[in-house]
């Protein structure tokens, strides 16, 4: 799953730690999600989208086969 987390974070001017604190997970989790190594659970994806005030599909999209 691809994501636009780094862009959204940069627009907010947030560090990875700040985003991690906002959604209640570790900074390593944010790093792994941004690198595409960890697909977040649906509740976490909702919280990430909520933190940026956008919809999930604006933040995440499936890999093209």
């Amino acid at each position: 799953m691809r994501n636009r987390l780094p862009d959204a974070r940069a627009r907010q001017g947030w560090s990875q730690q700040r985003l991690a604190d906002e959604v209640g997970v570790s900074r390593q989790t944010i790093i792994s999600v941004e690198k595409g190594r960890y697909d977040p659970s649906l509740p976490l994806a909702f919280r990430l989208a909520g933190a940026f005030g956008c919809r999930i599909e604006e933040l995440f999209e499936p890999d093209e086969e």
Partner: protein
Amino acid sequence: MTRPMDGPMPRRTRWGRARHGGGTATLWLGVGSIGLALAAGLGGVLAWTSDPGVRGVAFVVGVVVTLPVACAIGWVLLVDRGTISGAVERPDESIEGVWYERAASGALPDVFMTAGLGGAALAITGWEVPAGAVLIALAVLIAADVAVRYLVQRRAEA
């Protein structure tokens, strides 16, 4: 904001605060009480199973040896983890939780294989090994296996 509860966050400290309220001193009083009670119980068991001439020494050794672990158990039981600095709100959704689950599930086949091969080796050779030693060795092996698998994943994905 996505936090489940609004309002001021509790002040966080290195060792946290007790679930039932109070400051750090209250927490440590409870931890010490639980730790001493547990350690005294274990020391008592050790003394009871020892020779009558060394029961006093066995009790003291049992208390001293088990006190750190007993206090750690007391801390886990009493602390409000939301008040520990650096603790994440949702560890189950963090990547560390996923690493642990993978490490634990990966260790299971290792345990089956080790126990099976070890049992076969003992049956064939006829060696007589104390059951306690075998169980302790197996527990250490499982812990080491999970730890190594966890660290390998963390290193690979960091």
